[in-house]
C-alpha cells in the first residue's frame, strides 16, 4: 500500500527525510494517545487512582507533540510548497493531530472520572457494557493508527462503516444508566460519571472515524467528510 504514494522517492533526499520525520512524529503522538486511552479505561475498570493521575500528566507530552508537528508542517509548507500527494499528506497530518489531541483530552476525562469514582470507593467494573464499548473503541483506534502508518484505505473505510456500532453501544449504555437512575436515585451521581465516560469513549470513536476520513483523503484524494457510507464507497472505488 505504502508504495502507491512513493513517499520516499523525491529527488531531494532532505525532503524525504522531512516527510519521514513528521510522519514518525504523528505515529509517536498516536502511540501516546492510544496509551492514554488504554490507561484511562484500565483506571476506570480497576479504580486505579495512580494510573488516573498519570494520564493527566501524559497529556502534556501529547500537547507538546501537537505543537511540534504543526510547526514542522508549517516549515515544510513554507519551504517545499508540496503538491499533490505531498500536499494531501500535509493537510491530512494537520487535521489528524487535532483529532488525536482531542482523543487525548477525552482520555483525560476518563482518568478524572475514574479518580472520582475511586474516591467514592466505586469502579466501573460492574458495567460490562462500558467495558465492551471501551475495548471496542480502543481496538478501533489501534486499527486506525495502523491504517494510517500503512496508508491502508480499505481498513480506514471499514472503520468508518463500523462507527455506527459504537454509536449503538453508547445509546445502549445511556438507556441502561437512565433505568438505573430511575430505580435508585442514590446512584445518580455515579451513574452520571459512568455516562460521561461512555460519552468520552463515543467521542473517541468519532475522532477515530475522522482520522480514517483523512486517510482516505490522503490515499484516494477524495474528501469524504459528511458523506454516507454508500457515497464514500462510490467515491473511493478505483
Amino acid at each position, binding site marked *: 500500500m505504502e508504495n502507491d504514494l512513493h513517499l520516499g522517492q523525491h*529527488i531531494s533526499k532532505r525532503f524525504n527525510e522531512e516527510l519521514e520525520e513528521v510522519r514518525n512524529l504523528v505515529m509517536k503522538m498516536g502511540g501516546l494517545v492510544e496509551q492514554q486511552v488504554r490507561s484511562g479505561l484500565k483506571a476506570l475498570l480497576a479504580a486505579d487512582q495512580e494510573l488516573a493521575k498519570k494520564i493527566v500528566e501524559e497529556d502534556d507530552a501529547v500537547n507538546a507533540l501537537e505543537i511540534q508537528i504543526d510547526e514542522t508542517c508549517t516549515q515544510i509548507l513554507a519551504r517545499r510548497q508540496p503538491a*499533490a500527494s505531498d500536499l494531501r499528506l500535509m493537510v491530512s497530518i494537520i487535521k489528524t493531530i487535532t483529532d488525536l489531541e482531542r482523543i487525548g483530552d477525552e482520555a483525560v476525562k476518563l482518568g478524572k472520572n475514574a479518580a472520582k469514582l475511586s474516591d467514592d470507593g466505586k469502579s466501573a467494573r460492574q458495567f460490562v457494557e462500558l467495558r465492551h464499548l471501551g475495548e471496542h473503541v480502543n481496538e478501533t483506534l489501534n486499527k486506525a493508527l495502523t491504517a494510517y502508518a500503512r496508508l491502508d484505505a480499505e481498513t480506514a473505510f471499514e472503520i468508518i462503516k463500523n462507527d455506527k456500532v459504537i454509536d449503538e453501544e453508547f445509546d445502549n449504555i445511556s438507556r441502561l444508566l437512565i433505568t438505573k437512575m430511575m430505580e435508585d436515585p442514590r446512584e445518580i451521581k455515579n451513574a452520571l460519571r459512568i455516562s460521561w465516560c461512555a460519552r468520552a469513549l463515543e467521542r473517541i470513536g468519532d475522532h477515530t472515524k475522522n482520522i480514517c476520513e483523512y486517510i482516505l483523503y490522503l490515499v484516494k484524494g477524495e474528501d469524504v467528510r459528511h458523506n454516507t457510507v454508500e457515497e464514500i464507497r462510490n467515491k473511493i472505488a478505483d
Partner: protein
Amino acid sequence: MSDLSITEALTSDDIVIEGTVGTTTAEDAKMSMRNVNVFYGDKQAIKNVSLDLARNQVTALIGPSGCGKSTFLRCLNRMNDTIPICRVEGELKLEEQDIYAKKLDPVLLRARVGMVFQKPNPFPKSIYDNVAYGPRIHGLAANRAELDEIVVSSLQKAGLFGEVKDRLDAPGTGLSGGQQQRLCIARTIAVSPEVILMDEPASALDPIATAVIEELIDELKEKYTIAIVTHSMQQAARVSQATAYFHMGHLVEMGKTEQIFTNPTHELTENYITGRFG
C-alpha cells in the same frame, strides 16, 4: 534510484504512455488541436497531441525540459514555420479556421495569436514606437490620434502606462526587466489579438515583477485566451485554470488546475509536480 540524474529519472522509459488521461476538450474552445505530430527532421518532438484552449481561460503547459511544451506552443501561431527542418502534422484550428491552410497568411495569424517570449525583447525604439509598430504595419490606425489611443490603451491594459506615461519617447530597452516584459505584452495587445501565447514570460524576472506579470495574466484572460509555458509549477498553479502535462512529446495528462495540483491521475504527472524520481 538516487544514482540517476534528474533528467535520466524524468525521461525513464519504464512507464508506458498510452494516450492522454483527463479532459483535453473544452466546451467553449478558442483553439482546437487534434492529433498533432511535430518532427524536427527524423526526430519526432510532439506525438499525437490533442487539446483545446478554452476561451478566456489560461491554459498552462508544463513538463520537464525537452518534453515538447514550447514546440507545441510555437505551433499555435506557426512560429515553427521559420525552422526549415520542422514539419507539423494534424489539425490545428483557431475558431473553425485551419491555421495551417495554404492560403492563410502566417503574419495575419500571428496578429490574431500573439506571442510573449522568455526574455523581454523590445525593439531598439522608443516605448511609443514599440507599441505602435504592430498597428502601423497592419494599418490598424487611420491617423495619429487613433494610433495614440491604441498605444495608450495597450500600455494601460499591460499595466505599464502609469510608469511610462511621461517618457513615451524614451527607449524601450531602458526599462527594467519586468517593465520591458510588460512593454512586450503591450506590443502584443496593440494588434488586438484573440489568443496570447506566453513562453516562460516571467522566468527572467524577480519575484515582484513576476507577481505583477501574473496579476496581469489574470486580468488579460477577461479579454483574451491565454496559453502559457512555464517551468514554475507554482506559477502554473497560480495563474491557470487548466493544466497540460507534457512528457517526452506526449500529452500525458490534462485537467483542471485545481485537480492536477492536488490529485493528479497519472503517475508521471504526480512524479513531476512533487519532484519525485520516475
